[in-house]
Protein backbone atom coordinates (compact mmCIF):
# COMPACT_ATOMS: atom_id res chain seq x y z
CA UNK A 1 0.00 0.00 0.00
CA UNK A 2 1.22 3.48 -0.79
CA UNK A 3 2.05 5.57 2.22
CA UNK A 4 0.48 8.92 1.44
CA UNK A 5 1.22 10.68 4.70
CA UNK A 6 3.96 13.27 4.67
CA UNK A 7 5.76 11.64 7.55
CA UNK A 8 6.90 8.49 5.78
CA UNK A 9 10.29 6.80 5.92
CA UNK A 10 11.67 8.78 3.01
CA UNK A 11 10.95 12.12 4.67
CA UNK A 12 12.35 10.92 7.95
CA UNK A 13 15.60 9.73 6.37
CA UNK A 14 15.96 12.91 4.36
CA UNK A 15 15.48 14.98 7.49
CA UNK A 16 18.13 12.89 9.24
CA UNK A 17 20.61 13.57 6.44
CA UNK A 18 19.85 17.29 6.46
CA UNK A 19 20.37 17.51 10.22
CA UNK A 20 23.64 15.58 10.12
CA UNK A 21 24.93 17.61 7.19
CA UNK A 22 23.94 20.87 8.89
CA UNK A 23 25.92 19.96 11.99
CA UNK A 24 29.01 19.02 9.99
CA UNK A 25 28.81 22.13 7.81
CA UNK A 26 28.33 24.31 10.88
CA UNK A 27 31.44 22.88 12.53
CA UNK A 28 33.34 23.21 9.27
CA UNK A 29 32.52 26.88 8.71
CA UNK A 30 32.73 27.85 12.36
CA UNK A 31 36.23 26.40 12.50
CA UNK A 32 37.17 27.96 9.19
CA UNK A 33 36.29 31.51 10.24
CA UNK A 34 36.99 31.29 13.94
CA UNK A 35 39.16 34.02 15.43
CA UNK A 36 42.46 32.41 16.59
CA UNK A 37 42.35 34.49 19.80
CA UNK A 38 39.30 32.48 20.91
CA UNK A 39 41.55 29.52 21.59
CA UNK A 40 44.53 31.68 22.48
CA UNK A 41 46.84 31.15 25.43
CA UNK A 42 45.57 32.33 28.85
CA UNK A 43 47.90 31.05 31.51
CA UNK A 44 45.64 32.33 34.28
CA UNK A 45 42.96 29.70 33.44
CA UNK A 46 45.08 26.68 32.83
CA UNK A 47 43.75 23.15 33.38
CA UNK A 48 40.21 24.22 34.28
CA UNK A 49 37.57 21.53 34.47
CA UNK A 50 34.60 21.81 32.08
CA UNK A 51 32.18 24.58 33.04
CA UNK A 52 29.65 26.92 31.47
CA UNK A 53 32.41 29.24 30.35
CA UNK A 54 34.73 26.55 29.01
CA UNK A 55 32.49 23.74 27.82
CA UNK A 56 35.33 21.24 27.43
CA UNK A 57 37.65 22.78 30.02
CA UNK A 58 41.06 24.22 29.27
CA UNK A 59 44.49 22.73 28.63
CA UNK A 60 47.90 23.28 30.25
CA UNK A 61 48.29 26.60 28.44
CA UNK A 62 44.83 27.82 29.32
CA UNK A 63 43.46 27.42 25.82
CA UNK A 64 39.74 26.77 25.52
CA UNK A 65 39.38 23.13 24.53
CA UNK A 66 35.97 23.52 22.91
CA UNK A 67 37.15 26.14 20.45
CA UNK A 68 40.32 24.20 19.78
CA UNK A 69 38.25 21.10 19.05
CA UNK A 70 36.03 23.00 16.63
CA UNK A 71 39.04 24.40 14.82
CA UNK A 72 40.78 21.04 14.89
CA UNK A 73 37.78 19.19 13.55
CA UNK A 74 37.40 21.80 10.84
CA UNK A 75 41.06 21.27 9.86
CA UNK A 76 40.43 17.53 9.78
CA UNK A 77 37.40 18.07 7.54
CA UNK A 78 39.46 20.10 5.07
CA UNK A 79 42.07 17.34 4.88
CA UNK A 80 39.31 14.73 4.65
CA UNK A 81 37.69 16.64 1.80
CA UNK A 82 40.95 16.94 -0.13
CA UNK A 83 41.75 13.29 0.46
CA UNK A 84 38.29 12.09 -0.56
CA UNK A 85 38.37 14.16 -3.74
CA UNK A 86 41.80 12.94 -4.81
CA UNK A 87 41.18 9.34 -3.82
CA UNK A 88 37.78 9.24 -5.50
CA UNK A 89 39.05 10.67 -8.79
CA UNK A 90 41.89 8.14 -8.79
CA UNK A 91 39.41 5.38 -7.98
CA UNK A 92 37.00 6.49 -10.72
CA UNK A 93 39.67 6.57 -13.42
CA UNK A 94 41.31 3.31 -12.36
CA UNK A 95 38.05 1.48 -11.76
CA UNK A 96 36.53 2.42 -15.10
CA UNK A 97 39.76 1.84 -17.02
CA UNK A 98 40.19 -1.58 -15.50
CA UNK A 99 36.62 -2.63 -16.25
CA UNK A 100 36.44 -1.17 -19.74
CA UNK A 101 39.84 -2.14 -21.14
CA UNK A 102 40.29 -5.39 -19.20
CA UNK A 103 43.33 -7.55 -19.90
CA UNK A 104 46.62 -5.89 -19.15
CA UNK A 105 45.11 -2.70 -17.71
CA UNK A 106 42.86 -4.70 -15.45
CA UNK A 107 45.79 -6.73 -14.17
CA UNK A 108 47.85 -3.60 -13.63
CA UNK A 109 45.09 -1.89 -11.63
CA UNK A 110 44.60 -5.00 -9.52
CA UNK A 111 48.34 -5.11 -8.89
CA UNK A 112 48.27 -1.49 -7.72
CA UNK A 113 45.37 -2.25 -5.39
CA UNK A 114 47.18 -5.30 -3.99
CA UNK A 115 50.37 -3.29 -3.53
CA UNK A 116 48.56 -0.55 -1.68
CA UNK A 117 46.84 -3.08 0.56
CA UNK A 118 49.98 -5.14 1.10
CA UNK A 119 51.35 -2.95 3.87
CA UNK A 120 49.27 -2.25 6.96
CA UNK A 121 47.46 0.97 6.21
CA UNK A 122 49.02 2.78 9.15
CA UNK A 123 52.57 1.83 8.12
CA UNK A 124 51.91 3.01 4.58
CA UNK A 125 50.53 6.29 5.93
CA UNK A 126 53.62 6.81 8.07
CA UNK A 127 55.98 6.01 5.19
CA UNK A 128 54.25 8.35 2.74
CA UNK A 129 53.91 11.09 5.32
CA UNK A 130 57.64 10.84 6.08
CA UNK A 131 58.50 10.89 2.40
CA UNK A 132 56.46 14.05 1.87
CA UNK A 133 58.22 15.70 4.78
CA UNK A 134 55.61 15.17 7.52
CA UNK A 135 53.59 18.17 8.67
CA UNK A 136 50.35 19.28 7.04
CA UNK A 137 51.55 18.44 3.54
CA UNK A 138 52.80 15.02 4.57
CA UNK A 139 49.61 13.88 6.23
CA UNK A 140 47.38 15.26 3.47
CA UNK A 141 49.37 13.54 0.74
CA UNK A 142 49.45 10.30 2.73
CA UNK A 143 45.72 10.26 3.42
CA UNK A 144 44.86 11.30 -0.13
CA UNK A 145 47.02 8.64 -1.77
CA UNK A 146 45.96 5.63 0.27
CA UNK A 147 42.19 5.63 0.24
CA UNK A 148 41.41 4.70 -3.35
CA UNK A 149 41.77 0.89 -3.40
CA UNK A 150 38.39 -0.04 -1.92
CA UNK A 151 36.50 2.50 -4.04
CA UNK A 152 38.38 1.35 -7.14
CA UNK A 153 37.11 -2.16 -6.51
CA UNK A 154 33.53 -0.92 -6.10
CA UNK A 155 33.61 1.13 -9.32
CA UNK A 156 35.26 -1.71 -11.25
CA UNK A 157 32.66 -4.18 -10.03
CA UNK A 158 29.76 -1.91 -10.96
CA UNK A 159 31.04 -1.17 -14.45
CA UNK A 160 31.87 -4.81 -15.07
CA UNK A 161 28.33 -5.82 -14.21
CA UNK A 162 26.85 -3.12 -16.42
CA UNK A 163 28.98 -3.92 -19.43
CA UNK A 164 27.21 -7.20 -20.06
CA UNK A 165 23.64 -6.17 -19.25
CA UNK A 166 21.00 -6.58 -21.93
CA UNK A 167 20.23 -2.91 -22.35
CA UNK A 168 23.85 -1.91 -22.79
CA UNK A 169 24.38 -4.66 -25.35
CA UNK A 170 21.15 -3.70 -27.09
CA UNK A 171 21.99 -0.04 -27.35
CA UNK A 172 25.42 -0.92 -28.73
CA UNK A 173 23.77 -3.11 -31.38
CA UNK A 174 21.53 -0.21 -32.26
CA UNK A 175 24.60 1.78 -33.11
CA UNK A 176 24.84 4.13 -30.16
CA UNK A 177 28.31 5.52 -29.58
CA UNK A 178 30.41 4.56 -26.58
CA UNK A 179 30.06 8.08 -25.22
CA UNK A 180 26.26 7.96 -25.37
CA UNK A 181 26.22 4.58 -23.70
CA UNK A 182 28.59 5.78 -21.03
CA UNK A 183 26.56 8.92 -20.37
CA UNK A 184 23.04 7.51 -20.55
CA UNK A 185 23.54 4.02 -19.10
CA UNK A 186 26.77 3.83 -17.17
CA UNK A 187 26.98 7.13 -15.31
CA UNK A 188 23.49 7.09 -13.79
CA UNK A 189 24.15 3.58 -12.53
CA UNK A 190 27.64 4.04 -11.17
CA UNK A 191 27.13 7.53 -9.78
CA UNK A 192 25.11 6.62 -6.66
CA UNK A 193 27.51 3.85 -5.64
CA UNK A 194 30.40 6.18 -6.35
CA UNK A 195 29.00 9.12 -4.38
CA UNK A 196 28.16 6.90 -1.43
CA UNK A 197 31.64 5.42 -1.58
CA UNK A 198 33.02 8.95 -1.60
CA UNK A 199 31.03 9.98 1.46
CA UNK A 200 32.00 6.78 3.28
CA UNK A 201 35.65 7.56 2.51
CA UNK A 202 35.41 10.67 4.64
CA UNK A 203 35.26 9.04 8.07
CA UNK A 204 38.22 6.82 7.21
CA UNK A 205 40.24 9.77 6.01
CA UNK A 206 39.46 11.81 9.13
CA UNK A 207 40.26 8.96 11.46
CA UNK A 208 43.53 8.14 9.72
CA UNK A 209 44.53 11.78 9.73
CA UNK A 210 43.92 11.89 13.50
CA UNK A 211 45.87 8.66 14.04
CA UNK A 212 48.88 9.80 12.02
CA UNK A 213 48.83 13.17 13.76
CA UNK A 214 48.55 11.46 17.14
CA UNK A 215 51.69 9.45 16.41
CA UNK A 216 53.55 12.65 15.52
CA UNK A 217 53.75 12.38 11.73
CA UNK A 218 50.92 14.68 10.87
CA UNK A 219 49.77 18.18 11.65
CA UNK A 220 52.35 20.23 13.58
CA UNK A 221 52.02 20.62 17.35
CA UNK A 222 51.04 24.29 17.26
CA UNK A 223 48.08 23.61 15.01
CA UNK A 224 44.77 22.76 16.69
CA UNK A 225 43.92 19.22 15.65
CA UNK A 226 42.20 16.37 17.40
CA UNK A 227 45.27 14.18 17.07
CA UNK A 228 47.52 16.85 18.58
CA UNK A 229 45.09 17.56 21.41
CA UNK A 230 44.82 13.89 22.30
CA UNK A 231 48.59 13.41 22.15
CA UNK A 232 49.00 16.37 24.52
CA UNK A 233 46.32 15.04 26.83
CA UNK A 234 48.42 11.92 27.42
CA UNK A 235 50.73 14.00 29.62
CA UNK A 236 47.85 15.10 31.83
CA UNK A 237 45.75 11.96 31.99
CA UNK A 238 47.71 10.50 34.90
CA UNK A 239 46.87 13.53 37.01
CA UNK A 240 43.15 13.05 36.46
CA UNK A 241 42.49 15.62 33.73
CA UNK A 242 40.06 13.29 31.98
CA UNK A 243 38.20 16.01 30.08
CA UNK A 244 41.23 16.71 27.92
CA UNK A 245 40.90 13.29 26.31
CA UNK A 246 37.18 12.57 26.55
CA UNK A 247 35.57 15.49 24.71
CA UNK A 248 37.90 15.87 21.73
CA UNK A 249 37.57 12.16 21.06
CA UNK A 250 33.79 12.35 21.35
CA UNK A 251 33.73 15.21 18.83
CA UNK A 252 35.74 13.13 16.40
CA UNK A 253 33.53 10.12 17.03
CA UNK A 254 30.39 12.15 16.43
CA UNK A 255 31.72 13.47 13.12
CA UNK A 256 32.65 9.96 11.98
CA UNK A 257 29.27 8.55 13.03
CA UNK A 258 27.42 11.31 11.20
CA UNK A 259 29.34 10.76 7.97
CA UNK A 260 28.63 7.06 8.24
CA UNK A 261 24.99 7.83 8.87
CA UNK A 262 24.72 10.10 5.83
CA UNK A 263 26.40 7.53 3.62
CA UNK A 264 24.34 4.58 4.82
CA UNK A 265 21.08 6.52 4.70
CA UNK A 266 21.75 7.74 1.16
CA UNK A 267 22.43 4.13 0.23
CA UNK A 268 18.96 3.21 1.47
CA UNK A 269 17.26 6.19 -0.18
CA UNK A 270 18.88 5.72 -3.57
CA UNK A 271 18.12 2.07 -3.68
CA UNK A 272 14.62 1.89 -5.19
CA UNK A 273 13.92 -1.35 -3.32
CA UNK A 274 14.48 -0.02 0.17
CA UNK A 275 13.90 3.66 -0.54
CA UNK A 276 10.13 3.51 -0.34
CA UNK A 277 9.71 0.92 2.36
Amino acid sequence: MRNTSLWNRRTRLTLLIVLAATYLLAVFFWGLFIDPSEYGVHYENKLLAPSGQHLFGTDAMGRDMFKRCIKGLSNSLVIGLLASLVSSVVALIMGIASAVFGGFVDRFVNLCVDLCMGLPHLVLLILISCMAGRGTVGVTVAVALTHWPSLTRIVRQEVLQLRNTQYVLASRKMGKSYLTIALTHMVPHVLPAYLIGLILLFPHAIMHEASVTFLGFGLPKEMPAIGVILAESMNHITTGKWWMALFPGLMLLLAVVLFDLIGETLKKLWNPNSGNE
Partner: protein
Amino acid sequence: MRTRNILYELIRMLLLLILVSFLAFVLIAKSPIDPLVSYIGTNSTLSPEAKQEIVEHWGLNEPVFTRFFKWLVNILHGDMGTSITYKKAVSSVIIERFSYSIVLMLLAWILSGILGFVIGVICGIKQGGIYDRITKLFCLMVKSAPTFWLGLMFLVIFAVSLGWFPIGMAVPMGKLKSEVTVWDRLYHLVLPVITLTVANISEVVLYTRQRVVEIIGSDYILYARARGENQGQIIRRHVLRNVMLPAITLQFASFSELFGGMALAENVFAYPGIGTATTAAALSGDAPLLMGIALISALFVFTGNLIANILYGICDPRIREKEES
Protein backbone atom coordinates in the same frame (compact mmCIF):
# COMPACT_ATOMS: atom_id res chain seq x y z
CA MET B 1 45.35 -30.08 -7.60
CA ARG B 2 44.91 -28.08 -4.46
CA THR B 3 48.61 -28.09 -3.63
CA ARG B 4 49.30 -26.57 -7.01
CA ASN B 5 46.89 -23.75 -6.29
CA ILE B 6 48.46 -23.09 -2.93
CA LEU B 7 51.88 -23.11 -4.56
CA TYR B 8 50.69 -20.67 -7.21
CA GLU B 9 49.23 -18.46 -4.49
CA LEU B 10 52.53 -18.61 -2.57
CA ILE B 11 54.55 -17.53 -5.58
CA ARG B 12 52.13 -14.71 -6.33
CA MET B 13 52.38 -13.53 -2.73
CA LEU B 14 56.18 -13.71 -2.79
CA LEU B 15 56.33 -11.55 -5.90
CA LEU B 16 53.88 -9.10 -4.39
CA LEU B 17 55.94 -9.03 -1.21
CA ILE B 18 59.05 -8.10 -3.18
CA LEU B 19 57.11 -5.38 -4.99
CA VAL B 20 55.69 -4.06 -1.73
CA SER B 21 59.15 -3.91 -0.17
CA PHE B 22 60.38 -2.11 -3.26
CA LEU B 23 57.57 0.40 -2.84
CA ALA B 24 58.52 0.90 0.81
CA PHE B 25 62.19 1.14 -0.14
CA VAL B 26 61.51 3.85 -2.71
CA LEU B 27 59.34 5.75 -0.21
CA ILE B 28 62.10 5.70 2.39
CA ALA B 29 64.89 6.38 -0.12
CA LYS B 30 63.03 9.39 -1.54
CA SER B 31 62.20 10.81 1.88
CA PRO B 32 64.09 13.80 3.23
CA ILE B 33 65.67 11.47 5.79
CA ASP B 34 69.43 11.61 5.20
CA PRO B 35 70.86 8.33 6.50
CA LEU B 36 74.25 9.96 6.86
CA VAL B 37 72.93 12.77 9.05
CA SER B 38 70.84 10.46 11.22
CA TYR B 39 73.89 8.20 11.65
CA ILE B 40 76.59 10.73 12.54
CA GLY B 41 74.32 13.39 14.03
CA THR B 42 73.71 16.93 12.84
CA ASN B 43 76.70 18.55 14.52
CA SER B 44 79.43 16.10 13.63
CA THR B 45 82.97 17.27 12.96
CA LEU B 46 83.64 14.80 10.17
CA SER B 47 85.47 16.20 7.18
CA PRO B 48 83.67 16.26 3.84
CA GLU B 49 86.11 13.62 2.55
CA ALA B 50 85.25 11.26 5.40
CA LYS B 51 81.55 11.83 4.74
CA GLN B 52 82.11 11.08 1.08
CA GLU B 53 83.82 7.88 2.09
CA ILE B 54 80.84 6.76 4.19
CA VAL B 55 78.48 7.63 1.38
CA GLU B 56 80.51 5.51 -1.00
CA HIS B 57 80.91 2.70 1.52
CA TRP B 58 77.14 2.55 1.97
CA GLY B 59 76.50 2.97 -1.71
CA LEU B 60 74.18 5.93 -1.08
CA ASN B 61 75.07 7.59 -4.38
CA GLU B 62 73.99 4.60 -6.42
CA PRO B 63 70.57 4.46 -8.10
CA VAL B 64 67.63 3.30 -5.99
CA PHE B 65 67.21 0.09 -7.91
CA THR B 66 70.77 -1.10 -7.29
CA ARG B 67 70.47 -0.24 -3.64
CA PHE B 68 67.22 -2.13 -3.36
CA PHE B 69 68.78 -5.14 -5.04
CA LYS B 70 71.71 -5.07 -2.61
CA TRP B 71 69.31 -4.76 0.31
CA LEU B 72 67.32 -7.73 -0.98
CA VAL B 73 70.47 -9.84 -1.33
CA ASN B 74 71.49 -8.90 2.20
CA ILE B 75 68.04 -9.84 3.50
CA LEU B 76 68.38 -13.24 1.91
CA HIS B 77 71.66 -13.61 3.79
CA GLY B 78 69.84 -12.72 7.00
CA ASP B 79 71.41 -9.28 7.31
CA MET B 80 68.89 -6.47 7.75
CA GLY B 81 71.40 -3.78 8.63
CA THR B 82 71.96 -1.92 11.88
CA SER B 83 69.37 0.17 13.62
CA ILE B 84 70.56 3.70 14.35
CA THR B 85 68.14 4.35 17.23
CA TYR B 86 68.79 1.14 19.14
CA LYS B 87 72.44 0.62 18.08
CA LYS B 88 71.73 -3.04 17.44
CA ALA B 89 71.17 -5.27 14.45
CA VAL B 90 67.73 -4.62 12.95
CA SER B 91 66.88 -8.31 13.04
CA SER B 92 67.51 -8.57 16.79
CA VAL B 93 65.51 -5.37 17.48
CA ILE B 94 62.61 -6.71 15.44
CA ILE B 95 62.70 -10.14 17.06
CA GLU B 96 62.79 -8.65 20.55
CA ARG B 97 60.03 -6.12 19.85
CA PHE B 98 57.89 -8.50 17.88
CA SER B 99 57.89 -11.04 20.70
CA TYR B 100 56.10 -8.44 22.82
CA SER B 101 53.70 -7.40 20.08
CA ILE B 102 52.80 -10.88 18.96
CA VAL B 103 51.52 -11.78 22.45
CA LEU B 104 49.39 -8.65 22.45
CA MET B 105 48.05 -9.19 18.96
CA LEU B 106 47.46 -12.91 19.40
CA LEU B 107 45.49 -12.45 22.61
CA ALA B 108 43.39 -9.62 21.18
CA TRP B 109 42.88 -11.51 17.94
CA ILE B 110 41.64 -14.67 19.63
CA LEU B 111 39.52 -12.80 22.16
CA SER B 112 37.87 -10.55 19.59
CA GLY B 113 37.32 -13.52 17.30
CA ILE B 114 35.65 -15.78 19.84
CA LEU B 115 33.73 -13.10 21.73
CA GLY B 116 32.73 -11.34 18.52
CA PHE B 117 31.50 -14.55 16.99
CA VAL B 118 29.43 -15.56 20.00
CA ILE B 119 27.93 -12.08 20.39
CA GLY B 120 27.24 -11.90 16.67
CA VAL B 121 25.42 -15.22 16.62
CA ILE B 122 23.29 -14.27 19.62
CA CYS B 123 22.46 -10.90 18.04
CA GLY B 124 21.55 -12.51 14.75
CA ILE B 125 19.24 -15.03 16.37
CA LYS B 126 17.55 -12.45 18.57
CA GLN B 127 17.39 -9.97 15.75
CA GLY B 128 15.56 -6.75 16.57
CA GLY B 129 15.56 -7.36 20.31
CA ILE B 130 16.84 -4.95 22.89
CA TYR B 131 20.12 -6.87 23.26
CA ASP B 132 20.64 -6.78 19.52
CA ARG B 133 19.99 -3.06 19.34
CA ILE B 134 22.36 -2.21 22.16
CA THR B 135 25.11 -4.36 20.71
CA LYS B 136 24.65 -2.85 17.27
CA LEU B 137 24.84 0.66 18.67
CA PHE B 138 27.92 -0.25 20.68
CA CYS B 139 29.58 -1.73 17.60
CA LEU B 140 28.85 1.33 15.48
CA MET B 141 30.28 3.59 18.18
CA VAL B 142 33.42 1.49 18.62
CA LYS B 143 33.88 1.23 14.87
CA SER B 144 33.80 5.01 14.61
CA ALA B 145 36.16 5.62 17.52
CA PRO B 146 39.87 5.85 16.84
CA THR B 147 41.80 3.03 18.55
CA PHE B 148 44.14 5.38 20.37
CA TRP B 149 41.21 7.27 21.87
CA LEU B 150 39.68 4.02 23.11
CA GLY B 151 43.03 3.26 24.74
CA LEU B 152 43.08 6.69 26.36
CA MET B 153 39.57 6.20 27.70
CA PHE B 154 40.46 2.82 29.19
CA LEU B 155 43.50 4.46 30.77
CA VAL B 156 41.34 7.17 32.28
CA ILE B 157 38.75 4.76 33.63
CA PHE B 158 40.70 1.67 34.71
CA ALA B 159 44.18 2.96 35.41
CA VAL B 160 43.64 6.49 36.72
CA SER B 161 40.16 6.60 38.27
CA LEU B 162 39.87 3.03 39.50
CA GLY B 163 43.58 2.29 39.75
CA TRP B 164 43.08 -1.35 38.85
CA PHE B 165 45.77 -1.52 36.21
CA PRO B 166 49.16 0.11 35.60
CA ILE B 167 49.39 3.20 33.40
CA GLY B 168 51.67 1.68 30.83
CA MET B 169 54.88 -0.16 29.94
CA ALA B 170 55.27 -3.93 29.82
CA VAL B 171 56.87 -4.44 33.24
CA PRO B 172 56.75 -2.62 36.59
CA MET B 173 59.01 0.37 36.73
CA GLY B 174 62.21 0.06 38.75
CA LYS B 175 62.15 -3.70 38.89
CA LEU B 176 65.12 -5.75 37.78
CA LYS B 177 64.64 -7.76 34.63
CA SER B 178 65.30 -11.02 36.48
CA GLU B 179 62.61 -10.24 39.05
CA VAL B 180 59.82 -9.65 36.54
CA THR B 181 57.35 -12.50 36.65
CA VAL B 182 54.90 -13.72 34.05
CA TRP B 183 52.13 -12.25 36.16
CA ASP B 184 53.70 -8.79 36.00
CA ARG B 185 53.72 -9.02 32.24
CA LEU B 186 50.16 -10.28 32.03
CA TYR B 187 49.02 -7.56 34.41
CA HIS B 188 50.54 -4.92 32.15
CA LEU B 189 49.04 -6.58 29.11
CA VAL B 190 45.42 -6.39 30.25
CA LEU B 191 44.58 -2.85 29.17
CA PRO B 192 46.33 -2.96 25.77
CA VAL B 193 44.66 -6.29 25.03
CA ILE B 194 41.23 -4.96 26.02
CA THR B 195 41.75 -1.89 23.84
CA LEU B 196 42.80 -3.90 20.81
CA THR B 197 40.02 -6.44 21.36
CA VAL B 198 37.33 -3.78 21.56
CA ALA B 199 38.75 -2.01 18.52
CA ASN B 200 38.65 -5.19 16.45
CA ILE B 201 35.48 -6.80 17.74
CA SER B 202 32.86 -4.71 15.95
CA GLU B 203 33.71 -5.99 12.50
CA VAL B 204 33.37 -9.63 13.54
CA VAL B 205 30.14 -8.98 15.43
CA LEU B 206 28.48 -7.05 12.61
CA TYR B 207 29.60 -9.52 9.96
CA THR B 208 28.52 -12.58 11.92
CA ARG B 209 25.21 -10.97 12.80
CA GLN B 210 24.52 -10.12 9.17
CA ARG B 211 25.26 -13.65 8.03
CA VAL B 212 23.17 -15.22 10.79
CA VAL B 213 20.21 -13.00 9.90
CA GLU B 214 20.52 -14.04 6.25
CA ILE B 215 20.71 -17.72 7.14
CA ILE B 216 17.79 -17.59 9.60
CA GLY B 217 15.63 -16.11 6.84
CA SER B 218 16.60 -18.75 4.27
CA ASP B 219 14.39 -21.50 2.91
CA TYR B 220 16.38 -24.38 4.31
CA ILE B 221 15.92 -23.08 7.83
CA LEU B 222 12.19 -22.91 7.19
CA TYR B 223 12.34 -26.48 5.95
CA ALA B 224 14.37 -27.54 8.98
CA ARG B 225 11.73 -25.99 11.23
CA ALA B 226 9.02 -27.77 9.31
CA ARG B 227 10.90 -31.02 9.84
CA GLY B 228 10.62 -30.34 13.55
CA GLU B 229 14.17 -29.35 14.43
CA ASN B 230 14.29 -27.20 17.52
CA GLN B 231 16.19 -23.93 17.87
CA GLY B 232 19.29 -25.58 19.35
CA GLN B 233 19.50 -28.11 16.56
CA ILE B 234 19.04 -25.45 13.91
CA ILE B 235 21.79 -23.32 15.38
CA ARG B 236 24.19 -26.21 15.75
CA ARG B 237 23.48 -27.94 12.45
CA HIS B 238 22.91 -25.02 10.10
CA VAL B 239 23.76 -21.62 11.49
CA LEU B 240 27.13 -22.27 13.13
CA ARG B 241 28.40 -24.41 10.29
CA ASN B 242 27.60 -21.83 7.69
CA VAL B 243 28.88 -18.83 9.59
CA MET B 244 31.97 -20.09 11.31
CA LEU B 245 34.31 -20.49 8.37
CA PRO B 246 33.63 -17.16 6.67
CA ALA B 247 34.03 -15.50 10.06
CA ILE B 248 37.41 -17.17 10.61
CA THR B 249 38.48 -16.20 7.12
CA LEU B 250 37.48 -12.62 7.76
CA GLN B 251 39.45 -12.66 10.97
CA PHE B 252 42.57 -13.79 9.11
CA ALA B 253 42.06 -11.18 6.44
CA SER B 254 41.98 -8.41 9.06
CA PHE B 255 45.68 -8.63 9.98
CA SER B 256 46.29 -5.24 8.39
CA GLU B 257 43.89 -3.45 10.74
CA LEU B 258 45.16 -5.53 13.64
CA PHE B 259 48.68 -4.31 13.01
CA GLY B 260 47.58 -0.68 12.76
CA GLY B 261 45.50 -0.93 15.92
CA MET B 262 48.39 -2.59 17.71
CA ALA B 263 50.74 0.24 16.74
CA LEU B 264 48.32 2.85 18.10
CA ALA B 265 47.53 0.94 21.29
CA GLU B 266 51.23 0.37 21.97
CA ASN B 267 51.92 4.06 21.63
CA VAL B 268 49.18 4.93 24.09
CA PHE B 269 50.39 2.42 26.68
CA ALA B 270 54.11 2.91 25.98
CA TYR B 271 54.29 -0.83 25.40
CA PRO B 272 57.74 -1.75 24.08
CA GLY B 273 56.60 -3.61 20.98
CA ILE B 274 56.97 -3.18 17.26
CA GLY B 275 54.42 -0.33 17.19
CA THR B 276 56.43 1.96 19.43
CA ALA B 277 59.55 0.94 17.53
CA THR B 278 57.86 2.03 14.28
CA THR B 279 57.17 5.54 15.54
CA ALA B 280 60.61 5.80 17.12
CA ALA B 281 62.28 4.68 13.90
CA ALA B 282 60.24 7.02 11.72
CA LEU B 283 60.69 10.00 14.02
CA SER B 284 64.46 9.61 14.27
CA GLY B 285 64.98 8.78 10.61
CA ASP B 286 66.19 5.27 11.27
CA ALA B 287 65.92 4.02 7.69
CA PRO B 288 67.22 0.43 8.13
CA LEU B 289 64.86 -0.28 11.03
CA LEU B 290 61.92 1.35 9.25
CA MET B 291 62.58 -0.78 6.20
CA GLY B 292 62.83 -3.90 8.34
CA ILE B 293 59.54 -3.10 10.05
CA ALA B 294 57.85 -2.43 6.71
CA LEU B 295 59.03 -5.82 5.48
CA ILE B 296 57.89 -7.62 8.63
CA SER B 297 54.50 -5.91 8.66
CA ALA B 298 53.96 -6.72 4.99
CA LEU B 299 54.92 -10.33 5.70
CA PHE B 300 52.43 -10.34 8.56
CA VAL B 301 49.60 -9.06 6.36
CA PHE B 302 50.48 -11.47 3.56
CA THR B 303 50.49 -14.43 5.91
CA GLY B 304 46.99 -13.51 7.03
CA ASN B 305 45.75 -13.07 3.47
CA LEU B 306 47.35 -16.31 2.38
CA ILE B 307 45.70 -18.27 5.17
CA ALA B 308 42.38 -16.56 4.41
CA ASN B 309 42.65 -17.46 0.73
CA ILE B 310 43.56 -21.07 1.45
CA LEU B 311 40.76 -21.41 4.01
CA TYR B 312 38.38 -19.95 1.49
CA GLY B 313 39.40 -22.51 -1.08
CA ILE B 314 39.18 -25.42 1.33
CA CYS B 315 35.91 -24.45 2.93
CA ASP B 316 33.80 -23.27 0.06
CA PRO B 317 32.90 -26.27 -2.10
CA ARG B 318 31.95 -23.99 -4.98
CA ILE B 319 35.45 -22.54 -5.21
CA ARG B 320 37.03 -25.91 -4.55
CA GLU B 321 35.17 -27.59 -7.38
CA LYS B 322 35.85 -24.77 -9.78
CA GLU B 323 39.54 -25.13 -9.10
CA GLU B 324 39.53 -28.88 -9.47
CA SER B 325 37.70 -28.98 -12.75
